[in-house]
């Protein structure tokens, strides 16, 4: 039961798992709707692996904290259930013809949880907070691109950029903070870090550190009050305990592991009490090649490895079939994903042929290919604490041995993994995962300027055409144009194989059956939390 520190990647992954769920909607046990009458009341109890750390949005960067702040605060815009931008605190917005200026028209009927009216001054204040060097936030970068921000009247907010920026509009999904409670204070010691005051559908009630956080519905919410009276987050650090709590009735919802989903929840008794859901997560796992190493500078070697790996076998073995093959950095079914991109089918014969073409031949008959007297040997590095990656690594190791490669697998603690191996470029190949942001901009991962220590192009990928496409993609505001750009990007990546894309896992949430009104969409199930309800007769928590 080692619960190792979840690396940042994983933490982001869980945010994505829990909040922004995928596309291939497949509701397994549809609840009979229509006959049940919505009713107010009852409590939804959720589990979280780690306690929240800070509930002031600019300072909240972990999954547990953002899960809470997303219910307590609103942005100017948000992603709807189909992952398209829609208005939130902004009723509408205009983008100037040159694409460099956005004018937001704010709602006039919004109040903070303490009763004060929400105005454009709060938005301007939040923007200033984000770019203030004294604010220790990791998300300031995109707000620095703003050349001018102003609030001409209480319900208008305008920002101007030097260049058109595709990510400009979505960046205003930023949670807006109350100026009247934060102005002139050191935000890092503000009481709002422990007791947030927002505009969202749920109000903060209490936080018992390490135990639970209690939220109650905001009766004055601009979209109408939520049906559920309370939402409660219980901190349960162990996923097995969480599963036992779910069964004993101490939790109403959690994300299942593939093993729990496939093997431990198939009983009729479980089905009578819970509904299971399944859709692709916004994340993928890949095998990345250090392109600075001579071995991997030959494209044919990378292609050969891709042909030697059986992705379906990985999905069946590691995810118990609960996932799908990946062939690019986007989730299948989302608009940036190119469905026609070249895929590397499992074909050991083709892999062997490619290796021979590249000069790697087993001359001494020991089962390992050589070239110029050097054996074809490398190490796959991955981080400790992620069993799926370790299992995938073992399966890949065996498949590569079959085509004459001597591959070792090394598992290293996360901090050393990054500092000693990945950032200094001291690795051959690495098994890692990325979460997929809703906006397809992959500049930080693929652009040749991002190969420095600590930057995210860890494999040293350098391709002039990809660089050009990435630059165009971030400057274009037209979705069709961007789709073309990112489809081309995927074609180049498929040909060049800097990564072998392995699989996209499924999100596997489960919710107690008494909750109705759940609607599964590309964004997952939580997008309409305020419309979830429990029929009067089935309510469990009356106060």
């Amino acid at each position, binding site marked *: 039961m080692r619960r190792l520190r979840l690396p940042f990647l994983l933490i982001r992954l869980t945010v994505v798992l829990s909040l922004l769920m995928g596309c291939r909607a497949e509701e397994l046990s549809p609840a009979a709707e229509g006959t049940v009458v919505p009713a107010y009341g009852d409590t939804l109890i959720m589990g979280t692996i780690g306690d929240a750390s*800070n509930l002031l949005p600019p300072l909240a*960067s972990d999954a547990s904290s953002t899960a809470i702040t997303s219910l307590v605060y609103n942005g100017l815009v948000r992603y709807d259930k189909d992952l398209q931008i829609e208005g939130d605190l902004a009723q509408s917005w205009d983008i100037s013809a040159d694409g460099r200026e956005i004018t937001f028209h704010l709602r006039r009927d919004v109040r903070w949880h303490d009763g004060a009216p929400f105005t454009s001054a709060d938005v301007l204040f939040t923007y200033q907070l984000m770019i203030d060097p004294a604010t220790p936030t*990791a998300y300031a970068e995109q707000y620095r691109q703003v050349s001018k921000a102003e609030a001409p009247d209480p319900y208008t907010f305008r920002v101007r950029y030097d260049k058109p920026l595709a990510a400009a509009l979505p960046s205003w999904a930023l949670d807006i903070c109350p100026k009247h409670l934060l102005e002139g204070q050191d935000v890092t010691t503000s009481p709002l870090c422990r007791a947030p005051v927002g505009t969202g559908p749920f109000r903060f009630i209490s936080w018992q*550190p390490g135990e639970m956080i209690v939220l109650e519905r905001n009766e004055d919410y601009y979209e109408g009050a939520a049906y559920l009276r309370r939402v409660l987050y*219980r901190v349960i650090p162990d996923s097995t305990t969480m599963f036992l709590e779910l069964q004993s009735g101490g939790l109403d919802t959690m994300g299942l592991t593939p093993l729990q989903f496939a093997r431990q929840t198939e009983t009729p008794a479980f089905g009578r009490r819970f509904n299971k859901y399944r859709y692709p997560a916004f994340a993928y796992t890949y095998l990345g090649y250090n392109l600075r190493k001579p071995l991997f500078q030959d494209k044919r070697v990378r292609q050969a490895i891709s042909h030697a790996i059986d992705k379906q076998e990985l999905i069946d073995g590691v995810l118990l079939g609960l996932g799908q093959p990946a062939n690019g950095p986007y989730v299948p079914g989302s608009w940036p994903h190119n469905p026609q991109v070249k895929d590397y089918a499992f074909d050991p014969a083709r892999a062997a042929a490619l290796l021979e073409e590249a000069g790697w031949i087993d001359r001494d008959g020991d089962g390992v290919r050589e070239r110029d007297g050097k054996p074809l040997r490398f190490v796959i590095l991955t981080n400790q604490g992620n069993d799926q990656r370790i299992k995938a690594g073992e399966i890949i190791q065996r498949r590569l041995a079959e085509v004459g490669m001597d591959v070792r697998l090394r598992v290293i603690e996360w901090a050393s993994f*990054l500092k000693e191996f990945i950032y200094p470029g001291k690795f051959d190949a690495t098994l890692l995962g990325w979460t997929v942001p809703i906006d397809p901009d992959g500049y930080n991962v693929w652009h040749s300027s991002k190969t420095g220590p*600590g930057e995210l192009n860890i494999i040293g990928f350098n391709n002039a055409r990809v660089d050009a496409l990435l630059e165009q993609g971030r400057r274009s505001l037209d979705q069709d144009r961007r789709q073309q750009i990112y489809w081309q990007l995927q074609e180049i990546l498929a040909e060049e194989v800097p990564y072998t894309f392995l699989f996209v896992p499924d999100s596997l949430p489960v919710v107690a059956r008494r909750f109705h009104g759940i609607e599964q969409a590309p964004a997952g199930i939580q997008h309409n939390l305020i419309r979830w309800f429990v029929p009067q007769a089935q309510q469990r928590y009356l106060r």
Partner: protein
Amino acid sequence: MLFYLTRRLLLMVPLLLGITLISFVVIHLAPGEPTDLQTEMNPEAGTELKERLRAQYGLDQPLLVQYAVWVKRLVRLDFGTSFSQDRRPVWDKIVERLPVTILINLLSIGLILLVAIPLGILSALRRHRLFDRLTTLLVFVGFATPSFWLSLLLMDHFGVYLGWFPVSGIKSLGHAYLGPVEQWLDVAHHLVLPVLVSAFGGLAGFSRYMRSNMLEVIGQDYILTARAKGLSERLVVLRHALRNALLPLITLLGLSVPGLIGGSVIFESIFAIPGMGKLFYDGVMMRDYPLIMGILVIGAFLTLLGNLLADVGYALADPRIRQS
């Protein structure tokens, strides 16, 4: 005696400084920094941001300067502010976790003593008989059982299947609505499984120790004398043997003092108990230096204090020590 105590207390100061210096250096040697959680693998975080965050935490200073700053604060009993996202005073974070940790540890030590002392005595008196062999087996099974495994089995059976005890946590959801007595009962109800599990693993040590002490004492001449006087076996065991056999336990209890604030991360994670073990573990994983150092200092202080208390307690209880 007073002189002895003062000398011992003064000697603790350089010892504590040495411990903290070594801990400070070692913890900084580990790869990774507190800023990593915010900046690593985060496409939004630029190099300049990392430098700014490091400067905010004072991590850009040489290590010895950082240590000096830390010691200067410590002298004023200020443990500093946590480097984690919440930036709360380290002392507050420790204090809110202490009561439940101490409560569980006290209950579990109490339960261990309650069971282990009679077990040890009876085993010694029935040496190599069936009872002795069975208890030996039992306590070593307890010692060898992984606590997470036992916990999960108990939770599944008593929590999910029978529904007798709550699976995890220390309070019910409606705790705030209960009366004061019900609140205590509620907590007690939640603590049954955790205390049982943590005591089960600790039985072996104490009961074996008690058994060997008892065996040693039983063979002494004064026991022979007591028996020769015609005292009943009950009186011989309880008045003459037991008292002397209990003496070494004082040392053992003294050594358990630092354990009172320690918790096991595995155990606390499984039962979702917000205790010190989890706090320390998370602190280490996040490289939250002030928090780690705060807990280490308290732990080191309690260890030294426990040793002192054990020595003093032993002297008070045993005239032979006092005279020498």
